[in-house]
């Protein structure tokens, strides 16, 4: 997604140059009003004062960010120290999303490689196979995962029947279940960009290299991997970023106790907490993190383009 913004179409045809502002107006209007403006309003809200029982008072305040970063004790009058409660929620999210990304990479890279090295005619079919599950409703996929992983679910039943285990594995409502859920949600995002970059890769060079080096695994590590790195990074970002703000997987598979950022934010608006400015502030922190990741990625991408 970041790559799109960076490249953005290189054809410089200007057939419709005169009408371009009229053609752009609808998208500016709709996106400006319903995406850009809301994000700005949210930024304002994060600096407002929370009303006693939910809702906001239009008074400028740093309280939401203060609550996020500083711990002032149970009664709000202790010396401020660093607030670990929310930082740990963010840290847990990063950790969970990171593990899900690694898991996706471990499975996704070989898959992408395998598909990209198939005869040209059959590649589209393999890509098609990998993409179909992505088009299934995320909620349904998460629910299916929950069903599969339950203590008395089909997975445990299968493992017990073939004699691998005696007692059911307790996976549901653990961190592992959340990681599996995230991994499962975004796996196709890992496969596709890696596939695209391997497909473009010219194999004659690494074939020559493989003759030079001792093993072809060395060739993979030294020659192919660096060449397809942009695809790998794109895949990792496409899995990591949505995992970071995920709501369904932690909520349904994690038992609503091991909070991730998504649930923390949701609770401020729909749950018990009812603290809008804080929810807006937490959203802003998440958004900032994602923007930083995307900017670093875009810079790397540009550097890679400049090199080649």
């Amino acid at each position, binding site marked *: 997604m970041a790559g799109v913004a960076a490249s953005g179409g290189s054809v410089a045809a200007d057939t419709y140059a005169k009408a371009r502002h009229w053609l752009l107006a609808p998208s500016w209007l709709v996106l400006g009003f319903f995406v850009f403006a809301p994000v700005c309003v949210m930024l304002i809200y994060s600096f407002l004062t929370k009303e006693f029982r939910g*809702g906001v008072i239009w008074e400028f305040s740093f309280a939401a960010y203060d609550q996020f970063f500083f711990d002032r004790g*149970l009664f709000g009058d202790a010396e401020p120290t660093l607030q670990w409660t929310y930082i*740990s929620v963010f840290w847990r999210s990063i950790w969970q999303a990171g593990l899900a990304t690694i898991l996706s990479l471990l499975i996704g890279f070989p898959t992408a490689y395998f598909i990209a090295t198939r005869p040209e005619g059959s590649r589209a079919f393999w890509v098609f196979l990998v993409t179909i599950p992505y088009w299934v409703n995320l909620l349904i996929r998460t629910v299916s995962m929950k069903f599969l992983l339950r203590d008395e679910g089909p997975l445990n039943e299968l493992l017990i029947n073939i004699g691998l285990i005696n007692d059911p594995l307790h996976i549901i409502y653990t961190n592992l279940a959340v990681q599996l859920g995230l991994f499962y949600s975004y796996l196709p995002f890992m496969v596709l960009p890696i596939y695209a970059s391997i497909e473009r890769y010219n194999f004659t060079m690494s074939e020559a290299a493989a003759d030079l080096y001792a093993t072809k695994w060395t060739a993979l590590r030294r020659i192919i991997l660096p060449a397809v790195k942009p695809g790998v990074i794109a895949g990792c970002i496409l899995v990591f970023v949505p995992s970071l703000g995920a709501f369904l997987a932690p909520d349904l598979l994690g038992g609503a106790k091991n909070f991730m950022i998504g649930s923390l934010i949701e609770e401020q608006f*729909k*749950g018990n907490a009812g603290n809008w400015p804080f929810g807006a502030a937490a959203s802003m922190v998440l958004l900032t993190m994602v923007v930083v990741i995307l900017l670093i990625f875009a810079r790397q991408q540009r550097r890679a383009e400049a090199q080649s």
Partner: protein
Amino acid sequence: MKLLTTSAMALALLANAAAADGELVVYHWFEYMPAELLEKFETETGIDVTIDTYDSNEAMLASLKAGGMGTYDVAVPGDYMVAIMAGEGLLDTIADGELTNKGNIAPEWADPSFDPGRTHSIPYQWGSTAFAVDTAAYTGDINTTDLLFNPPAELSGKINMLDSQGEVMALASLHMDIPQCSSDRGQLQALNDMLQEAQTHWASFNSDTSREVLVSGDVTVGMTYDGFAAKARAERDTIKYAFPTQGYVVWMDNVVLLKDAPNRANALIFMDFLLEPENIAAVSNYARYGLGVSGATEFLDPDLATAPEANPPATAGKGAFIEVCDQETQAVYDQIWTNLKN
């Protein structure tokens, strides 16, 4: 494209217009209204009912304050929440004579402290909140709040709590034998420390699955309502509802008329409908709670009166309503709750 836009607008308007006539929008707890009764109401009155659900009093309040006012006609808050909502100016006043069946309200519920004179609400159901235990998996004494807040090692990781601040804090206060909404710093600190320790033994916070997790055996101890415990027992007969010696929470849910209700007249018809003994008895038979209307006994399922969930043993502590804290204490409660959940 113009054609597309116009037709889109037309369709959207159409969909909205359908919501204006003969409608009633109810904001209700999950699993609290039998479908047959709703159907009966719709056929009797020709009013189309839409139900949206919530899973805690606090979540309902938050959602109403977050732009929900003016879209719902009635809601079903618990006792203390009726007082809070009235204080926030979220409730409309029911004038004398607007409810034909107001006289049906049982005398003991006709003038409660949370809504003197019943000017905003009518009784819906009353019951208690404690916890249920699968006695097949745990054989010790169950009538103690230690099972939630100081559990034996074998129950660690086998406990589900309600995702409801009011009920958890009230029960925790009973456990520690401190007054609810205490403003004493030492007591509040102790409450926080106790909950932080207890929290390490809890598997999950869930209200809407609190029955399901008990029946499926995912947890052994589950904080829940008496009616849910009764339904769980029907599905797994080793499940037993506890009446802790330290005390337990009692509550009454009430149907309230919301301010700016888009279908105020229909809301009053709905309230009158729920004051008919036969109708409210149908709710009790379904949800397994008590009711606050006179003359309903003949319509009630006879099992209900003898159900163990409705008859506290002699050893049971006192039942306590949830109290409304002042702003300062509530801020500390919010902080404790946040510490607990993250």
